[in-house]
């Protein structure tokens, strides 16, 4: 990325003073104001997530097509449908949230939908209704609201498979009974 390899291959220039190397961000992190996060992100949070830093306040709709970390304040709606949303320990979200997976270390006030899993950590606070396929609540978390576990529907079989099948061979049915 950023032609770094090519730059490295070049012979050193004779310039007497070289600027300190600037650490490149791995992917777009346009909203972050605090590159040194004040919490250790969970190991499963990819380092390439977009981040709303703890000194940032956003009012309105957020739509993200990559994993998102909110450690600041957000008011409105958050839509990260295909990705993971992490609300950091400094995060305060007053919004309806939709995401594939949600990890809460801070505070959320609003209804939350996770297509896969919601993980409410110790000291997190969530006031609102939850719809999720799976839920993990650590002791010490504060939750007030309803929990609706939405089981993933089994994939519908094609119409052609619903037609009566020919009887299985005798040998196979006998082995099934064992």
């Amino acid at each position, binding site marked *: 990325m950023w032609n770094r390899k090519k730059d490295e291959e070049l012979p050193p220039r004779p310039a007497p003073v070289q600027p300190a190397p600037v650490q490149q961000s791995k992917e777009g992190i346009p909203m972050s104001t605090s590159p040194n996060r004040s919490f250790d992100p969970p190991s499963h949070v990819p380092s390439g997530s977009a981040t709303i830093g703890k000194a940032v306040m956003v009012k309105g709709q957020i739509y993200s097509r990559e994993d998102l970390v909110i450690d600041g304040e957000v008011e409105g709606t958050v839509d990260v449908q295909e990705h993971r949303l992490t609300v950091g320990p400094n995060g305060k979200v007053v919004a309806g949230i939709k995401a594939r997976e949600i990890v809460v270390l801070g505070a959320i006030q609003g209804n939350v939908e996770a297509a896969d899993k919601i993980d*409410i950590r110790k000291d997190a606070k969530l006031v609102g209704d939850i719809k999720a396929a799976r*839920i*993990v*609540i*650590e*002791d010490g*978390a*504060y*939750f*007030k*609201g*309803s*929990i*609706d*576990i939405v089981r993933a529907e089994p994939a519908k079989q094609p119409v052609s498979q619903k037609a009566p099948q020919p009887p299985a061979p005798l040998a196979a049915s006998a082995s099934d009974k064992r």
Partner: protein
Amino acid sequence: MFKDRLKTILRGSSAGGMSAPSATLPGPSGGSGMVTGPAYTRHSNGLDQFFSSLRGQVGLNILDFAGASQANVSFITNLGHRLSSEDYLRSLEITFGDEHFYENQDDPRQAEKFLNDNLNFPEGHFDGALVWDALQFLSPPLLQATVERLHLILRPGSSLLAFFHADEKAVQVPLYNYRISDEKTLLLTPRGSRKRAQYFNNRGLEKLFQGQTVKFFLTRDSLREIIVRR
């Protein structure tokens, strides 16, 4: 003198339950304090009766006053029900403070706001309620209003499970986190102690839930279990 002191000590330990956890030490301000003592499991006929009343049904709305825990969430949602969770005692402490806990509850405006913030559900919304021991920490006017509100938000025929400490002379009663292990067993984790608002005997509980069927369960410890049929 010594006899009285011994009685007080024994009363304190027996109120904790079967294995006498060290949970009866009052907090510095009489509040719920920190979690003390080891957790222990306890058979519960009331819980058994409660889940028997739900058997064969799915998609019910269950109200749980114990606060969200993985055990209760998993157990109830695995039965196919929807859970509404609320740490009622913690909400009481947040709303009414610790110093004048019961005096503040007597303020009708604050009491009404508390109910609207914490028990604001449509009529007949719930098919069952697990209120555990929360009702004994309500002053009489708020208790009456809470019971009326519970009556309103529970559908007719539904069940409510409540616990009351049966030791008449105990002033401070132990507090627990109630975690469901299975249909008949609870895991109780001590979380301090608190002065209760009033003592209820069976007659008093029948009067409190007037017009509804109240079933009592005898226990070996000092916790009186009741099922109220709406």
